[in-house]
């Protein structure tokens, strides 16, 4: 049953759901425009073939696959952060887990779209099922991502169930009838009875564990798509764990930025405090250290006892891609560590800036994994048209990338219009006594 604290919280958050301000409407319109541009680009790509992209026979995968890895990585934020914090019963998590869960599910819906953009014959997609072969890592990926989507949906649904029933029971809400009906159906008859509460708690615990495990598998499989090949820059045993760490790292960055934005937009200063930024910032610091360690290990072994092709790749990275390499693998590692590591620098603004740096660095990191490797194959790129030798993304690819980001923002906005962006029910709960924590 809704307690007093919960209803007072609901009273505070219900306006968020009740109306959409003029500025918000403009914002949504802008996002829709960007998405429409993406659709136009997609139309061109389908009508005129992949020739409209910058991809060619040498660099067959471009920024689409970079976006794919990136969004899948971001989706890991919620899975791991909200899953782990839930299992550890960390009290401070309560105001931010809803955001983490939203990030997870939305990024997870966008990521796979980018791998579809790499596929030449979308009309034959059903062959993946009809003629599927289990020995192909793509089949592993299809199975893993499908499982992940289902798992994360269940986890998110369990997490919002109590809030759905709370809104349903909140009589003062000025929402249209259809919306009230929607909450009624979505709440699945949850009344907050002790038995229901117990079951929900148990189910959430199980799913929290599951999504962590599934996310590790999904991200490793994604890494194996690269590392099972013989390409010099990809054929690395470290790629599985490296990708997993990089994923949580980027997810952390996105979570901090989302926290900052929602805090500003919905005036959540009371709930999301500097403490939250510092706590997630510390997680980000640890991940930065791990990410830096994996990156260093990978490139050190390639450079020190280098085979000829590793040498060529390193040369290319430090030659053509020097600044991108420095930005992603040095600045991206050191900056978040310094900002959170030195107590004086730990302001909300600084931590948010470091998160933006992390997001950029991680995107570039994936670009540097994908593109330069394909530009330095075993047989040197020769006897193909000179304009085909190097990769430059075209506006089509950038438009589709931008529309992915816009779609992410749009879904976050709409999500916050349906469910309070702060988990009202859990906030209303009494803190778990220490002896009950795992």
């Amino acid at each position: 049953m809704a307690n007093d604290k919960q209803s007072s919280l609901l009273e505070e958050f219900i306006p968020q759901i009740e109306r959409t301000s003029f500025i918000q409407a403009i914002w949504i319109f802008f996002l829709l425009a960007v998405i429409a541009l993406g659709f136009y680009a997609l139309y061109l790509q389908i009508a005129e073939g992949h020739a409209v992209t910058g991809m060619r026979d040498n660099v067959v995968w471009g920024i689409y696959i970079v976006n794919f890895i990136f969004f899948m990585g971001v989706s890991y934020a919620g899975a791991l952060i909200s899953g782990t914090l839930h299992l550890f019963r960390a009290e401070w998590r309560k105001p931010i887990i809803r955001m983490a869960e939203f990030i997870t599910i939305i990024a997870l819906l966008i990521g796979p779209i980018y791998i579809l953009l790499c596929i030449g014959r979308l009309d034959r997609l059903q062959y993946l099922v009809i003629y599927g072969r289990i020995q192909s890592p793509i089949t592993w990926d299809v199975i893993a991502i499908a499982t992940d989507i289902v798992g994360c949906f269940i986890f998110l649904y369990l997490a919002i169930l109590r809030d759905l029933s709370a809104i349903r029971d909140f009589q003062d809400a000025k929402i249209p009838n259809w919306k009230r009906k929607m909450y009624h159906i979505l709440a699945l008859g949850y009344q907050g009875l002790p038995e229901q509460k117990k079951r929900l708690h148990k189910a959430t615990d199980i799913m929290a564990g599951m999504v962590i495990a599934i996310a590790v598998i999904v991200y490793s499989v994604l890494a194996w798509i690269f590392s099972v090949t013989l390409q010099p820059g990809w054929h690395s045993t470290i790629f599985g764990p490296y990708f997993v760490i990089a994923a949580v790292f980027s997810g952390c960055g996105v979570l901090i930025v989302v926290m900052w934005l929602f805090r500003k937009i919905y005036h959540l200063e009371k709930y999301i405090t500097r403490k939250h930024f510092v706590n997630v910032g510390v997680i980000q610091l640890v991940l930065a250290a791990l990410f830096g360690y994996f990156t260093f290990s990978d490139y050190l072994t390639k450079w020190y006892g280098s085979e000829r092709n590793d040498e060529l790749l390193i040369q290319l990275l430090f030659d053509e891609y020097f600044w991108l390499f420095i930005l992603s693998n040095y600045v991206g590692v050191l900056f978040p560590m310094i900002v959170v590591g030195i107590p004086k620098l730990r302001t909300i603004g600084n931590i948010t800036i470091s998160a933006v740096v992390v997001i950029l660095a991680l995107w570039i990191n994936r670009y540097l994994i994908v593109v330069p490797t394909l530009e330095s194959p075993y047989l040197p790129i020769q006897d193909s048209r000179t304009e085909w030798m190097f990769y430059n993304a075209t506006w089509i690819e950038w438009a589709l990338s931008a529309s992915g980001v816009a779609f992410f923002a749009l879904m976050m906005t709409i999500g916050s219009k349906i469910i309070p962006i702060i988990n009202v029910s859990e906030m209303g709960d009494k803190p778990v006594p220490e002896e009950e924590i795992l």
Partner: protein
Amino acid sequence: MKKNSENNPKKSTRRDFLKKSLATGAGIAATGGLVSAYLDTSAAESGETVKVLSTDGEIIEVDKAHIRYPRVSRKESREGIPGKKFVMVIDLARCKNARACVEKCQEGHHLPKSQEFIKIYLLQDTENTAPYWFPKPCFQCDNPLCVSVCPVGATYKRSDGIVLIDSERCIGCKFCITGCPYSTRVFAWSDYPEYDEDTQPYSPESSSPGLEGTVSKCDFCPDLIRVGKLPYCVAACPMGVIYFGDIEEDVVTNGSETYQFSELIRDRGGYRYLEVLGTRPSVYYLPPVERQFPVDRGFDGLDEEVRSRYDNTPYVKKQKKR
């Protein structure tokens, strides 16, 4: 069509022997009706004749224009020609980048000029070793990574060693392109120009053309092999650089010379490229020793566009500095 009455066994060369054996393989696969199925006498004669083996076991000469390449069923094209294991030997001492193989292959497979199934590299292993021309078809590996990674079984390995692509099944994920360490595979980025195609149904054996959004590559021309002909590149090469044959019968030919495969590899120090990768290619190379041409001859008569493709090679860069 006339019967070859002068079929003197003494005159029969190794080449004929190979052709016979190849044609017999085709005969088994097609089970009877070889001549009638593969010949279309209504077409205008070209004047050029070729020898083929009839189902009665006789060698007959037929007009080139009358031959219709067999389009085998999809099932057959997945199994391969029974009892065969094809192999290619490329003599690097002879190659001078004449590019006849490239052009004939493009023509035969209806490829646009921007795409090649066989490429010619200007390799130089180290700074102090000599550069050489290096024709590179698909290596038809016995442990092909491209086949392992294909999610839909569109590319497959046959009993005769050939790795083929079924363009009608390929979904165009390009994973095989990144899987191949030899950069052999090409993608149809846009629609290919129209060409006159006979009305026979599609077969993966003819590899032409790469349908838009799918992957294609060098296929060892199994449609030609079935009628006892050599692949386009082998037949086209004016220097006889490329030998083609059957490892089971231990014989390879470039059209005019025929060798025992094992002897050729033993005597000339044959090797496979990047053996260290463990892909077990079916293409062997003879090292560029006692060369017939200086490497610079390879630039003679090249189009400016083609010549510019080699601008990034260490050898050309060094020449330009001088």
